[in-house]
């Protein structure tokens, strides 16, 4: 159970949302872009496409300092009140010093403790297996969710979503959304049971319901949302919140559920290129800590055009932000992998490998993964997070250095980066899994085995 005294006063956040500096949203957006650009110059932050995983501690620390500067100068924009929620330097410092440094998911023998990782940490990353809300049909929800829950390296899991329930479209804000949200939670717990892991933590037990009422309606133990499960609350890009999100926070603070804060800044968007977006992503973690009272933090920075985070500049961004946070804060952070290509393709396996190596060596836990740009129905399976997690565990076990990781990841990226704009969308769940046995097809297993062999040629053996 969370210790509220170790988080910034949420009532004060609400007060500031109502009384902070009034500002037009478009002015806030423009100011953010200008500020990020000036901080990039002031702190000499430069993206180097030949050095995706820098070994430069000074660069990581400068990004951290720039993010502190950005957060304190910009504050957080509340779209409902059109006001800025601002914080003083000592408030940020207090929050960082007092935040709990471990969080538990799951129950009994499935209990997992998550901790802040370090750069080049040799401890295994915690792996939050997730279908990242990929749309699936009602009848396929359970087998897809089970494919994640049953994976041995899944420390927790979460599910896909349904867009239709009992023949009715699940529309945001409708009664059917509440019905479908409750069903979603029930099915996730049922998937855990069928996987033989009834008490595994579900780190986000609600994907189908978006509105706060639907989310809260599904948050009951009798539906399968156990204490030690969790929910994610997402900031609005960039550096914004609204009452819908703050209502979720108001509920979660007093619930037995782990509050994960979620950020997806767009590289190329309001914060600019990889440097500005890196600064903004680190600053989002302060938003999550102070505004959301986040116990852990989940990031999915994405490329504004390609909707993935496996391009060269995205991997650089992931690496430097992970290092900045791991070196300068005790925050529990996870890297949410977004692949351009889809299941059962050679490309997705290489993308997963590059993203996992980059994240693990840079201090992140792992949250695999969205595939096929997270937009094609039925294109997800437990195999993709398995690949990501196996790579991450191997990186930690062999003590891969940033320098060596950079060499391997550069080779991988060169192999797939030209294909990113028109990446293959891959196969649907039932095309790359045996639905009866809930296991990958021989074709998918063989592809992974082939890739492991190739990686061995790069000097990276995944057993």
């Amino acid at each position, binding site marked *: 159970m969370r210790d509220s005294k170790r988080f910034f006063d949420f009532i004060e956040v609400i007060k500031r949302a109502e009384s902070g500096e009034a500002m037009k949203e478009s002015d806030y*957006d*423009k100011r953010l*872009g*200008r500020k*990020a*650009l000036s901080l990039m110059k002031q702190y000499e932050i430069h993206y180097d496409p030949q050095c995706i995983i820098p070994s430069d501690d000074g660069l990581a620390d400068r990004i951290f300092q720039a993010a502190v500067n950005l957060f304190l100068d910009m504050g957080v924009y509340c*779209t409902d009140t059109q006001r800025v929620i601002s914080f003083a330097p000592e408030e940020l410092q207090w929050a960082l010093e007092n935040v709990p440094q471990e969080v538990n998911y799951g129950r009994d023998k499935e209990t997992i403790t998550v901790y802040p990782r370090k750069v080049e940490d040799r401890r295994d990353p915690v792996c939050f297996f997730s279908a990242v*809300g990929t*749309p699936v049909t009602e009848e396929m929800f359970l087998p897809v969710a089970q494919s994640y829950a049953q994976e041995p390296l899944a420390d927790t899991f979460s599910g896909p*979503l349904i*867009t239709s329930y009992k023949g009715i*479209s*699940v*529309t*945001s*804000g409708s009664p059917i*959304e509440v019905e479908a949200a409750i069903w979603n939670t029930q099915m996730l717990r049922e998937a855990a049971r069928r996987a033989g892991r009834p008490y595994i933590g579900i780190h986000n037990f609600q994907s*189908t*319901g*978006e*509105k706060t009422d639907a989310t809260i309606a599904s948050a009951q133990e009798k539906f399968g949302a156990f204490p030690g499960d969790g929910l994610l609350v997402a900031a*609005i*890009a960039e550096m914004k919140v*609204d009452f*819908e999100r703050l209502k979720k926070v108001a509920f979660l603070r007093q619930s037995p559920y782990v509050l994960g804060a979620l950020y997806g800044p*767009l590289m*190329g*968007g*309001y914060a*600019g*290129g990889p440097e*500005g977006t890196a600064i903004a992503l680190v600053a989002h973690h302060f938003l999550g800590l102070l505004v959301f009272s986040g116990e852990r933090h989940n990031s999915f920075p994405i*490329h*504004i*055009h390609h*909707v993935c985070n496996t391009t060269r500049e995205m991997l650089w961004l992931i690496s430097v932000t992970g290092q900045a946070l791991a070196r300068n804060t005790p925050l529990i952070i996870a890297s949410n992998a977004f692949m351009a290509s889809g299941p059962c393709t050679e490309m997705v396996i290489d993308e997963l490998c590059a993203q996992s190596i980059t994240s693990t060596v840079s201090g992140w836990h792992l949250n695999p993964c969205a595939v096929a*740009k*997270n*937009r*094609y129905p039925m294109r997800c399976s437990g195999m993709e997070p398995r690949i990501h997690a196996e790579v991450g565990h191997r990186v930690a076990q062999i003590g891969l250095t940033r320098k060596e990781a950079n060499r391997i990841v550069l080779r991988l990226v060169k192999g797939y980066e030209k294909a990113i704009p028109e990446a293959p969308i891959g196969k649907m769940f039932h095309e790359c899994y045996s639905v009866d046995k809930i296991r990958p097809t021989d074709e998918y297993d063989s592809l992974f085995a082939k890739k492991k062999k190739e990686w061995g040629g790069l000097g990276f053996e995944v057993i």
Partner: protein
Amino acid sequence: MDLFNEMAKAVIEGDEEKTVSLAQEALAKGVDPMEAIEKGFAEGMKEIGRLFEALEIYLPQVIISAEAMTAGVDLFRQHLLSKGGETSQKTVLLGTIQGDVHDIGKNIVKIMLESNGFKVYDLGRDVPVFDFIEKVKELRPDIVGVSALMTTTMVHMPKLIEALQESGLRDQVKVMLGGAPVLPEWAKKVGADGYGESAMEAVRVAKKLVGLSSEGERA
């Protein structure tokens, strides 16, 4: 013409003072304002669009260039109005669909449409279907452009198209859809007239829909 090149350059550099002074210079020389916009400012913005698509520049630079262009175009427009001239523009009613608060994509489309001569009425985010209908009745736009980032909100898009039909407005307005989870096949299936994978493609499709261009259409 050097003046047109300078106008394009001023837009690319986001130099608002320069776009205004070049517009004044063009008027003083008796250059047709519409020609100056098309061959000068719009060419600059076209290059900005290309650079953004290639991600050689980022959104803040796009906004600065768009604002510089708007300042120059506004000066031309005031001149035309003072002379009793026509300044008619094709219009787009834009919004993020009900339940969806994610609007960066919609905002980029807005910038690009405005930079390409469209008048955009931006209804903002989380816009109820009924509000779209009311505004279509009031503003009579050429196009309704709707975006969604989530699968649970994109399902409101077909409801909007149905509501336009029920209101007898469907034949009077083109409908364009966009947003991360929206696929071109789906947009076509639910009865949209156009789909934009990116902001630049949205502009190309919008032009085609209103008869300003013969370039490709996706849905």
